[in-house]
């Protein structure tokens, strides 16, 4: 199981593109694996014959464990494959000093040489260039070294896996109409901020059901559901309640822009999330039921924020209202705990 990002410790095996006994060429796609958020193609690092396939679909395999055996005559098959990517290679070159002009031997560098188009595609497809074998001149990664573009490319498989797993969780939804005051900051920032704060005040819901017990988390990680050309993405905002609203609004704008441009880092997608916030209010949806994303125990679904005619003291008035749906993992907490969380959300927002 190759290490495809700095944070990857294990991968889910998805599918073989080759069978036992097949010849593989260096750089040829042999299988696909999933990190927790993204599906990746795995290329042969050597040419040879696939003598034995070990992994089967849905296997969860730690990084560095074998998924197959290749018979090859090349030397140094594992050379550098599992070098610790977490330790940044210290940059020896003193600043301002020119590199020697001779092209060989290649100067060791912490960033792999790659043509700009390959860098761009690697970001779009969340591929760590350190895992790509260069075939271009000067040991440069060419565009074709990244393999052919994946046809589906809309993240359906990843969503399908997460949501199918979600159906195994007993979950309930609570709806509440929130009374809102007009404000200068964007509603997304305000909801993320207030909801993270509310979760911090209700640690029993900032939790995960695992090993037949509730596991509590110190940090609040809010995955923000973002609709992108590549499908639904959930970049994670860690402890957003610790930011000022200004800072958080800027952070969210940046994350959303990069999500839509396909420029999120894998780490942003795979950071620990304890909840998800989705907002369909802009699309005219008044209220909805979001499915939990395992292992998160809550999900907040934000509907349209609109002026509504409501009873006020002494008559009828117009107030800014919004229906939110709070989905809760029933193994983690009961209805009343969710109701209290929503009451706190109303107070904070």
């Amino acid at each position, binding site marked *: 199981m190759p290490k495809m990002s700095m944070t990857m410790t294990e991968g889910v095996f998805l599918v073989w593109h080759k069978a036992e006994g097949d010849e593989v060429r260096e750089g040829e796609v042999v299988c696909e694996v999933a990190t927790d958020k993204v599906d990746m193609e795995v290329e042969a690092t050597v040419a040879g014959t696939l003598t034995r396939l070990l992994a089967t679909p849905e296997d969860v395999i730690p990084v560095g464990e074998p998924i197959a055996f290749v018979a090859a005559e090349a030397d140094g098959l594992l050379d550098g494959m599992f070098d610790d990517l977490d330790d940044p290679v210290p940059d020896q070159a003193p600043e301002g000093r020119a590199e020697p002009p001779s092209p060989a031997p290649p100067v060791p560098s912490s960033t792999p040489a790659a*043509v*700009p*188009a*390959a*860098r*761009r595609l690697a970001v779009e497809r969340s591929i760590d260039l350190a895992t790509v074998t260069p075939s*271009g*001149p000067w040991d440069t990664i*060419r*565009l074709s070294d990244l393999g052919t573009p994946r046809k589906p490319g809309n993240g359906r498989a990843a969503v399908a896996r997460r949501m199918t797993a979600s159906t195994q969780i007993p979950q309930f939804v609570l709806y509440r109409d929130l009374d809102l005051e007009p404000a200068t900051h964007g509603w997304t920032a305000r909801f993320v901020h207030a909801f993270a704060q509310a979760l911090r005040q209700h640690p029993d819901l900032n939790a995960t059901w695992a090993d037949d017990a509730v596991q509590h988390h110190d940090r609040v990680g809010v995955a923000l559901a973002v609709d992108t050309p590549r499908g639904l993405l959930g970049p994670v905002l860690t402890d957003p309640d610790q930011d000022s609203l200004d800072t958080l609004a800027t952070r969210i704008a940046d994350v959303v822009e990069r999500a839509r441009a396909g420029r999120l880092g894998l780490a942003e997608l795979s950071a620990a999330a304890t909840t998800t916030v989705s907002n369909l209010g802009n699309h005219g949806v008044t209220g909805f039921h979001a499915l939990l994303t395992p292992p998160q125990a809550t999900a907040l679904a934000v509907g349209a924020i609109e002026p509504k005619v409501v009873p006020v003291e002494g008559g009828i008035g117009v107030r800014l209202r919004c229906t939110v749906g709070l989905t809760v993992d029933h193994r983690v907490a009961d209805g009343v705990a969710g109701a209290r969380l929503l009451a706190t959300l109303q107070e904070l927002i």
Partner: protein
Amino acid sequence: MTAVAERTLTYAEAVREALAQAMSADERVFLFGEDVGVYGGAFGVSGDLVHRFGEDRVRDTPISELGIVGAAVGAALAGMRPVVEIQFSDFTAQAMDQIANQAAKIHFMLGGAATVPMVLRAPGGSGTGAAAQHSQSLEAWFAHVPGLKVVMPATPADAKGLLLSAIDDPNPVIVLEHKLLYKQSGAVPAEAFRVPLGETAVRREGRDLTIVATGVMVSRSLEAAAALADEGISASVLDPRTLRPLDAQTIVDSVTSTGRALLVQEAPKTGGFMAEVAARLVESPAFGHLRAPVSRLCGLDVPIPYAPQLERAAVPQVADIVAAARELVRRW
């Protein structure tokens, strides 16, 4: 109209037709240079114009390039529309003070109070056995001077349409023709049509690389692109036509789409105009789409040799363009 538009002229005839139409339409336009009169021009471009427009408007001059251009600058300042012919673009070296220090600067230094609507036509390029002092490609000299516009027509139609735009322009415009192109034929509209300055022409569209070429290298690149197509390599061929002001956007758009750029010029590589195009590309949004280093194929950094074999070897030929393009696509 269709029948007329399909009419074929040589590049030299197209230039002559533009001059005749401009002189017919505007009595301020006159032709000025060595042997442009009775002799008909060093390369026969002015031809019979002296008989059609008279010796006042098709004026033979002494052999003094500095004097010719200086007089033209003065005439332009006085309200005329001079079209100067310099027999070989190499000889503009003699006139460079008038071109670079006078014509290019006057409008700016007089705060816009005066203009120099002068056109300077001169043939450049190698391939005629004219040796080192009569074969240079000097477009980069002029393109480096703010205040000058620089045009390099590569087809008979552009030779006419760009020249008419140059004559209309209130600024000094250097029109660099090519000696080898004068006898090439092509469809040229009969009417006095204009090809706007500052518009890159897409001569051929392809997927795998963008070839940018000027002057005689445009037709060589098109020949190369046809040969490459037989190998399964699909090349775009772009002709900037105007070097200054350069329409870089069209080039950027093409390279953004193909990811590879091969820049072809006859001039020596060092300090050449294609270095400017290369820099524009890597400074542009096309950078992120590059799948290969921006690559130049240029003349050698030598004076053009007299020996025909060496002369040919000193500048890119069709086979060189094919090989360079193939290499760029195969390696990257």
